[in-house]
């Protein structure tokens, strides 16, 4: 490994740890979240360095993008409750009392052996090992796609993806089950009222970006079969487009009534379960795709899943508003 590569890796690692430390310990919540988003983007770079471009796409879109949006929206709503809420919403004073300092030092001391134990465990691993890449390669042809990550996600370990799609649905049901939260101002009205003067800029941005995002999403979905991409990446880009529309004040909830939204959200899980049941009856094994049709079936699954993921992630962003009950 050249000195340049070492230097680059070192910078990445220091940057990661540094950003994480700052994000976790910054005094102002807004800068904490901003640093967290920067951390997410640096992680995406690290994934590229580690030859994991599929993860890089997912991390940038979901880990940095959508998570960041969720966190910022939550902070805004928290501050919107300022009238009723005590000072713990914005700046957090550095803990000065003895108890807090004691807890800090105590936990640092107790975590040191944990750190050493974990480091020892990791370093004791042999220096080279192949993992399952041989098995993946041997069966890639029969899987219907040529991107190994897509093959694992939607064929070899499709059951995991089935459950994961239900995790998304569960989160949505859970949030909607908690009823509405009383905000002084909702995200939508923030968007409409405070940006009325500059609406032309935001509107133009939306008109330009949203179609591009939709095309990128469709491309990621299609290309996932043989290059980095796939349902989750596509779905999250689509979700980002929906979030942008919501922030710009588009009345998406008039287009998507409660029932239509529910149907869209369950479309992915339903198609997955149906395909699982059908393959059980037809092929005798759960989620078994005959090699001739595997490619098509996977594309179908991915399309419906991407749609569901997009709707669910966007609804998670605007969730808790209560109008979808």
């Amino acid at each position, binding site marked *: 490994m050249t000195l340049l590569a070492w230097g680059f890796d070192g910078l990445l690692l220091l940057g990661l740890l540094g950003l994480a430390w700052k994000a976790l310990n910054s005094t102002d919540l807004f800068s904490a979240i901003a640093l967290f988003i920067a951390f997410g983007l640096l992680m995406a770079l690290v994934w590229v360095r580690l030859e994991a471009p599929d993860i890089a796409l997912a991390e940038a879109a979901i880990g940095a993008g959508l998570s960041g949006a969720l966190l910022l929206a939550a902070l805004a709503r928290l501050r919107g409750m300022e009238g009723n809420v005590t000072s713990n919403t914005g700046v957090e004073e550095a803990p000065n009392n003895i108890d807090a300092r004691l807890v800090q030092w105590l936990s640092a001391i107790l975590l040191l052996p944990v750190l050493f134990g974990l480091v020892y465990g990791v370093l004791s691993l042999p220096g080279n090992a192949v993992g399952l890449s041989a098995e993946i390669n041997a069966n890639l042809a029969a899987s219907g796609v040529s991107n190994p990550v897509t093959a694992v996600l939607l064929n070899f370990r499709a059951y995991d993806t089935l459950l994961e799609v239900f*995790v998304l649905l*569960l989160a949505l049901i859970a949030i909607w089950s908690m009823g509405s939260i009383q905000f002084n101002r909702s995200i939508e009205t923030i968007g409409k009222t405070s940006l009325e003067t500059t609406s032309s800029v935001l509107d133009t941005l939306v008109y330009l970006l949203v179609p591009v995002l939709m095309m990128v999403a469709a491309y990621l979905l299609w290309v996932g079969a043989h290059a980095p991409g796939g349902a989750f990446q596509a779905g999250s880009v689509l979700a980002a487009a929906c979030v942008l529309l919501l922030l710009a004040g588009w009345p998406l909830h008039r287009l998507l009534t409660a029932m239509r939204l529910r149907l869209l959200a369950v479309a992915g899980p339903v198609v997955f379960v149906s395909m699982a*049941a059908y393959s059980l009856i037809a092929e005798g094994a*759960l989620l078994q795709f005959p090699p001739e049709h595997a490619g098509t079936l996977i594309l179908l699954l991915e399309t419906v899943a991407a749609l569901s993921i997009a709707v669910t992630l966007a609804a998670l962003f605007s969730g808790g508003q209560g109008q979808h009950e």
Partner: protein
Amino acid sequence: MLQAVIADSHWAIILILLPLAAAVLCFLYARAANIIGVMTLSALVLSVAALGWQIRETGVYHHAIGGWEAPLGIGLYADGLSLLMLTITAVAGLGISIYATSYFKQQDAARFWPLWLLLLASLNALYLSADIFNLYITLELVGLAAVALAALTGGRDALAGAMRYLLATLLGSLAYLLGVALLYHGFGSVDIAILATQAEPVPVLWVAFGLMGAGLALKMALVPLHFWLPATHASAAAPVSALLSALVIKGAFYILLRLWLEIFAPHSGGAETLLGLLGSAAVIWGSLQALRQTRLKLLIAYSTVAQLGYLFIAFPLSTMAGAAVWSAAGYLALSHALAKAAMFLAAGNLMRFGGHDRIADLDRVVQRLPLTAGAFALAGVSIIGLPPSGGFVGKWLLLEAALTQGRWELVVVIILGSLLAAAYVFKVLGRAFTQAPVCQKARAVPARMEWAALLLACGAILLGFLAPFILPLMDIGDPFSASGVQP
């Protein structure tokens, strides 16, 4: 002909897919949620029975999902131990569901059923999985669904309890996942059977076990990581408290047990002593705390902490008497599920009746709610471990093993635990007979809620008689032989 159909069908897969589909249905058609829910639970009970019949006739059930065998694909696996846990879930689940149809108003019911059915699906998926990463996803599903159910009724206490639980369960899952990462990179697979053959006593194994053990211990509130449980279980709605204590806790325990039996036990290096110690501490500490409580639901929640300890006492005893001791633990888990669910449902009835759950003000409950008092009493019998009850069978088998192995400290702990349990159960029942200082106005309790609690409690007692039939079923596939398994 019918027998052939039962033997050839994929009951295990039905147990997973059916509640998933039912949850979606309830989400879309909330008005029919109660009916869909109870029908699904009944179907689950029948499917578990069919699965039991199937594995008794044809041996352990194994299914390679997608046609891909491990290590590439994920496997489903059902043996006696899985069957036990599935039975607990289905039977206690049915009782809780019937209770819930009367307990919740329409709006809450529409929120309850999708979450509850998803929880059931993920528990079933957990008990049937043979892949440690797949187990992580099922753990997350179970955790998130349980948190959402705990927060269902709103209110400051329930929300705080749910938030505490969410943080604890997420931390536990992450620790578990790190363990999965280490095991995968150390031994090359995430399939339990393959790991069983590949595991060696190297540092990676111990670090992974420490991580996974700590994570799962946090999820099931093993002392000293039990801080979140009493507040969460006490402040949730009654049927939710019942399912949290009876069913959700057992999920994490099952994973720990399975990993122990298959992968870690041969190379344990004395960890069972630590687990036994923590279990003993749980029994004593939990029982003492239960005795101190003034509120009924908190008392029952601390009782859960204590009862979990008995399951861990089985670890040090298992090195010499494996199958018998684990059967005892399994029987304890089964009886506890039914008895604890009954207790929480009875407490729910009392809260509906009097508007509070202060033990000191339980005003002549025996005369006014005889079925509920009876349910609590019978459940108490099983928790204490008095004959004839399922709890007695479990504790007796444990005690027998401890005596024959000369582990006097464990004998003392088991007996002390039972005495303390008797103390806190009678503390409640004593108040139930007497008149409170201030007479309480009462609201009517629906008959269905009283009967659900009573039937579950009777089930716990019935287990005392059914032991000769149930114990052999637990041994199908020989899950308790420490040398690890499989097809």
